[in-house]
């Protein structure tokens, strides 16, 4: 299960499952100290793990960089 911030590379490597965030390099889980944000990304990764029924799915997460509220 992978978290991707460079979709092109992920498409070529073809991992079994990945979630993609269009976020800056060095920030696959988000911002420092942003516990809810980091949890939200991991939760989405876990959900894909639970729901994926075929290999190669890349889910584009809808989280906007620095403009997203997390519960």
């Amino acid at each position, binding site marked *: *299960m992978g978290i991707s*911030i460079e979709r092109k590379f992920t498409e070529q490597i073809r991992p079994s499952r990945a979630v993609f965030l269009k976020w800056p390099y060095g920030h696959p889980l988000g911002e420092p100290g942003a516990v809810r944000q980091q949890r939200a990304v*991991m939760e989405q990764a*876990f959900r894909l793990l639970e729901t994926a029924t075929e290999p190669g799915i890349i889910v584009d997460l809808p989280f906007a960089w620095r403009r997203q509220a997390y519960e």
Partner: protein
Amino acid sequence: MSRLSNRLIARVFTAFPWLARRAAASVVPMSYETTPWTPLKKPLSECRVSLATTAGVHMRGESPFNMADTTGDPTFRVIPAAATTGEIMITHDYYDHRDADRDVNVVFPLDRLREFAAGGRVGGVASRHYGFMGHILENQIDRFVDREIPRVAAMMKDDGVDVALITPG
């Protein structure tokens, strides 16, 4: 000097992500024709999870990744489950890790994984986690794929790992 210029380029790429993506477009990374598949065999609440990252994390005091070789360092470092974030550091000149230096969970979410395990969302935290330095080129790729990755896979198997969560830098 070249280490300094690599770090400066990394900072520019973080400040201007579109520039990084344009640069990445010219890179031809490894590619595969097929996708591996192992279905999840039990509820996540019963699964043991291990982290692996290419963000260059390792324990303080351990030998850092080799930045002198421009083709990268294909070796890995083990992070024990009990490691505190203060005991973990990053050696990697090819991305801007100043934010990850402040909170390593940004690239290596060990604290978050412990919380998910404590809350029962995942079954447990594996005893060992893995740091790689994700700038591996040319002849180092074969060593990475043929020697280092199988070792990590075997260690995960020995530890009864059900799920590997892989994060970039």
